[in-house]
């Protein structure tokens, strides 16, 4: 693959200092045309800093960047674009209220003779590009109305449209389903074959092994090494990332399930889901798998009381539990750790302590007056117990890494003494090290007699952790499998609605 | 309510299609009874008076004057009154004026908010032979019968002249001392005229006097109070303050009351309100310049009628102002100015 000697981009000794912190200390990296180059490392290792410097969002402190052999530095995103750099971020960078075509042509809208925007032209051009990469989206569709996956495809289309020579993917699959991921990989291969260089950032080892050619591993702002993928193993890469040896990450100690604590009978809610029935037993890790939008999140929100269901009944600890308000679910001992923790789980601008004490306010207050010492003490104890990495409990949560943020959310529900924990995509955007710690927390929780419902779109994770899995397809439950029935193919088939020989 | 709206529509519709027609009432009559536009006879003159804002006592006083003119005429003059709710409703006033013209009154007295936007309607009325007497605000047209207004610069100058007299009476030598101006509104032509009139006159009378930077207070009494307080603190040789409307006067008087400087600093303001009147009696405010809206309304209506009776009128007439101080405040004429209609 490295037939051409000239790399598209070559970084030498890249250093970036933030006030008081050295984010990068001498990173070397080369991406060749037609190469898919993985950039991996735990959160905080410096991956996004590298990307942001390449894309002209940050300026470097020291080091050299060669673009096709020439010493250059992008001082703005626009300049980076002119170098032929394009980026697809996980939170897609598109104008939400404009159409697909308008996003493609943003800043360079062609005009008709009358001076109006030539919509025909931009729609046609956009359609052509989208078709060339097999993305079936109407160029006139407003971005906001598209699914996350579609938006991402559009973003990729835009980089192709801009004739990017280097495309950076930052966790592109975090919010995608399996099918969509496969589609994305097809597109990446297409790009690769056309001689585009790709820098691929992901936490998912399986992906890296299926599409990448080489991998560079960062740790604490320094390059640990660059290895060809066909000469390494997952464990080896993970060891490089975390700096220690890692065995099977999903190996946790399970508990023998106890009595049934949650019983769901034929619940339905609009178009989101219908006729869902299952039971969850004490000490169990109950997995829910399905594509994004298959109704998993909506089901747990209804159980918790965040949404109101239309029909069916829920029984918790033998008592009727048809909740209509979150406060009811909370009182009954349910903890909901939402899928999008930044949007729904955390008050990002507030401190670690404020977030941890947000639910169990009665423990830190009397007659509505808060005992700050007590709340700080509680927050500190959780920081120790769950190894939350933060300079202090006064730190704003937004400055924490994804894994530590997730631990803050877990703390807040532990403090409330919840006994049924519903985790919705608990490890999205969380690095390997923190994932392991979150799994350890699962282990501790069930050991303490608590029960877990875990929603995940990441099959290896559900299969590795759950005792049983409920599989969903378009609002219907297509099966409940127990551990000895777990087979990747079978689960995927159920999740895509294919009626197999069950 | 519905009826009123209907009649507005009717009047407007007639303006477009039929032209004049007897019996239609002018829109939203504020007080006076009687139909606006009955056929013009020599024994009855229907005069429509349109003010800038119905929410202000100043303009209500003008209406009182207009009505007084009607009452004294033994039925010869009938007055219809109207106006928008607030002085910001320029569009509404134009509509009111247009509807009034459509109702074919014999004469119109207009206190126009804008000096331009009512011009077309006024010119139309003039062309139709309806005399228009403008009061207070001068329009950018010649198509008016008479303009009656306070000359704010001259009125403010009378305050300056009296201030000098008061200093003399108190034995204060103003040479080289300081005076300050507190203004409600930096953007209003009227307020600017008052401040300039005062400043020019005081400098003419006492060339060595120092006029401090004007303090602008957004027509807010508290801000005027704070400004006056700070001026007094900063300037030991401050001997006079001029406020360019009644709210500024209220603030200045309050500052004098609290700092007990009422006898050392001569203070004047423009326009009257109860707070100022109290302050004059308590010595916290030396005097106020009072306009005569009652007189403007009264004379405006009479001017329109005079024109109809074929008399010649001077084009621009200055409405008198009165300087009210502790000395003359009890006089009948002054009391009538301060409490019109009582």
């Amino acid at each position, binding site marked *: 693959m490295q037939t051409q000697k000239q790399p598209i981009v070559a970084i030498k000794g890249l250093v970036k200092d933030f006030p008081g912190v050295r984010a990068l200390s001498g990173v070397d990296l080369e991406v060749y045309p037609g190469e898919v180059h993985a950039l991996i490392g735990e959160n905080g290792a410096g991956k996004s800093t590298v990307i942001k410097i390449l894309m002209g969002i940050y300026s470097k402190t020291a080091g050299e960047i060669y673009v096709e052999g020439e010493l250059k530095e992008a001082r703005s995103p626009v300049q980076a674009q002119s170098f032929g750099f394009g980026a697809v971020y996980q939170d897609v960078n598109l104008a939400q209220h404009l159409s697909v075509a308008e996003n493609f042509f943003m800043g360079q809208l062609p005009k008709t003779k009358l001076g109006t925007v030539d919509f025909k032209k931009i729609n046609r051009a956009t359609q052509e590009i989208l078709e060339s990469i097999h993305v079936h989206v109407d160029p006139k569709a407003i971005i906001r109305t598209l699914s996350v996956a579609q938006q991402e495809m559009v973003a990729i289309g835009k980089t192709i449209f801009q004739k990017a020579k280097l495309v950076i993917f930052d966790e592109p699959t975090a919010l995608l389903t399996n099918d969509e991921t496969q589609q994305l990989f097809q597109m990446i291969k297409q790009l690769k074959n056309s001689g585009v260089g790709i820098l691929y950032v992901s936490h998912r080892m399986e992906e890296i092994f299926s599409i990448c050619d080489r991998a560079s591993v960062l740790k604490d702002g320094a390059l640990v090494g660059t290895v060809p993928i066909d000469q390494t193993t997952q464990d080896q890469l993970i060891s490089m990332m975390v700096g220690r040896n890692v065995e099977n990450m999903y190996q946790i100690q399970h508990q023998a399930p106890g009595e049934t604590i949650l019983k769901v009978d034929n619940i339905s809610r609009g178009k989101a889901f219908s006729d869902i029935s299952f039971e969850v037993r004490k000490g169990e890790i109950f997995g829910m798998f399905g594509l994004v939008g298959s109704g998993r999140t909506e089901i747990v929100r209804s159980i918790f009381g965040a949404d109101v269901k239309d029909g069916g009944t829920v029984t918790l600890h033998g008592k009727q539990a048809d909740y209509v308000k979150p406060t009811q679910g909370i009182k009954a001992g349910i903890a909901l750790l939402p899928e999008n923790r930044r949007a729904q789980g955390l008050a990002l601008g507030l401190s670690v302590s*404020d977030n941890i004490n947000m639910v169990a306010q009665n423990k830190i207050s009397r007659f509505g007056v*808060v005992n700050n010492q007590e709340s700080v003490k509680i927050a500190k104890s959780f920081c120790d117990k769950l190894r939350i990495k933060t300079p202090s409990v006064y730190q704003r949560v937004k400055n924490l890494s994804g894994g530590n943020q997730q631990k803050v959310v877990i703390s807040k529900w532990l403090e409330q003494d919840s006994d049924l924990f519903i985790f919705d995509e608990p490890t999205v955007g969380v690095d390997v090290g923190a994932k392991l710690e979150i799994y350890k927390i699962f282990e501790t929780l069930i050991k303490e007699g608590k029960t877990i419902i875990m929603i995940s779109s990441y099959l290896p994770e559900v299969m590795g952790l759950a005792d049983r899995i409920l599989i969903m397809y378009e609002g219907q439950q297509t099966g409940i499998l127990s551990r000895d029935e777990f087979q990747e193919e079978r689960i995927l088939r159920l999740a895509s609605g294919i009626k197999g020989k069950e | 309510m519905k009826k009123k709206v209907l009649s507005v529509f009717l009047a407007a519709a007639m303006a477009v299609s039929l032209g004049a027609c007897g019996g239609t009432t002018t829109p939203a009559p504020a007080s006076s009874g009687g139909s606006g536009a009955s056929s013009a006879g020599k024994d009855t003159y229907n005069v429509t008076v349109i003010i800038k804002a119905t929410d202000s006592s100043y303009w209500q006083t003008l209406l009182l004057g207009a009505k007084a003119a009607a009452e004294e005429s033994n039925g010869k003059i009938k007055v219809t009154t109207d106006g928008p709710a607030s002085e910001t409703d320029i569009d509404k006033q134009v509509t009111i004026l247009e509807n009034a013209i459509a109702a074919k009154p014999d004469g119109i007295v207009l206190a126009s908010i804008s000096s331009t936007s009512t011009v077309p309607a006024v010119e139309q009325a003039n062309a139709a032979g309806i005399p228009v007497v403008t009061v207070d605000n001068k329009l950018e047209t010649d198509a008016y019968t008479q303009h009656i207004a306070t000359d704010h610069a001259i009125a403010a100058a009378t305050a300056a002249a009296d201030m000098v007299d008061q200093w003399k009476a108190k034995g204060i030598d103003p040479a080289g001392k300081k005076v300050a101006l507190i203004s409600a509104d930096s953007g209003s032509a009227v307020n600017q005229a008052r401040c300039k009139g005062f400043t020019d006159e005081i400098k003419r009378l006492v060339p060595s006097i120092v006029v401090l930077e004007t303090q602008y207070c957004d027509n807010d009494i508290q801000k005027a109070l704070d400004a006056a307080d700070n001026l007094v603190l900063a300037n030991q040789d401050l001997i006079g303050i001029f406020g360019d409307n009644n709210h500024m006067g209220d603030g200045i008087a309050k500052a004098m009351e609290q700092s007990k400087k009422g006898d050392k600093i001569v203070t004047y303001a423009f326009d009257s309100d109860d707070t100022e009147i109290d302050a004059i009696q308590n010595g916290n405010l030396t005097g106020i310049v009072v306009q005569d809206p009652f007189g403007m309304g009264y004379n405006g209506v009479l001017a329109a009628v005079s024109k109809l009776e074929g008399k010649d009128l001077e084009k621009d007439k200055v409405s008198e102002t009165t300087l009210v101080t502790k000395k003359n405040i009890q006089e009948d004429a002054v009391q009538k100015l301060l409490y019109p209609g009582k």
Partner: protein
Amino acid sequence: MTAENKSLKQRQYNSFLARYQTELLLVGILAVLFLFFGNTSPVFFQLETLMKLLKQASIYGIIAIGMVFVITSSGIDISVGSVVGLSGVIVAMAMVNGVPIPIAILLAIASSALVGLFNGILVYDANVPPFIATLGSLTIVRNFILLITGAKTISDLPKVFTNFAADSMLGIPYLFLSWAVFVCIGLFIAKKTTFGRNMYAYGSNKEAARLSGIRVRSVVYGVYIFCSSVCGVAGILLASRLGNGVPNAGTGYELDAIAAAVVGGASLDGGEGSVIGAVLGAMIMATLRQGGTLLGINSFIMEIIIGSLIVIAVVLDKVRKKRN
């Protein structure tokens, strides 16, 4: 994290600095202003001038405390000026009609709180954007005042009432003492009560707050009612200060209050806001205004300086937050 080798004291000190950076910055600005005016105006450091300054800042400062609550909850209340006017007129009308002073005061605060409740219902239940909801209230309340007073000032208030704003205790104006009381109340609610904490949580992330079991309706109602009630008190104090119930009193005060809150570090996106910051913001603005008059600086230039200060303070704050 880089502080691992620093001493505990040093770390605590750093954490204190980080948490109160905005406030410390404002204290710095205020100190610079004091030094500047003190050196250029011979009377600035006189006791009387300082007491006048405190008096002049008090009523704005009280309103700013209410405003900072609403802004922290990611709302905005531009009806505060009208509520100030309403409360002043109601307390005056009640007293003139022979209602005992304490009851008149309660009546005024209660009617102000009612406006707050109305705002809360519009914002929470009717889901009207706060700016629009309170813009409606601003107009409704101001015209209600004009209606009930006939646009006339209400005078002849009891001496006991009007003396309050003029008098002082041990040389400290009652107005300032009232402000101090509200600063304490505001601080207590913001820092020490579950309501205050919920306000920050709600302002920072509405959905997370709801899913955490916070009663969001009471948070929204609470901040608007608190803000309006505090403005009610400000209106009563203003009536006392002016010696009258003035129908147009308080017009435009919303802008000063928002400016004070924002200069004080409140974010219009919600989740951030500091009572002390707002107090310092109000103090800085009052100091500039007084200093401007003392030095005889042109009014227009002074307002340009104040406007620039608002922008600079906000930009500095943004830069600082970005760096963290």
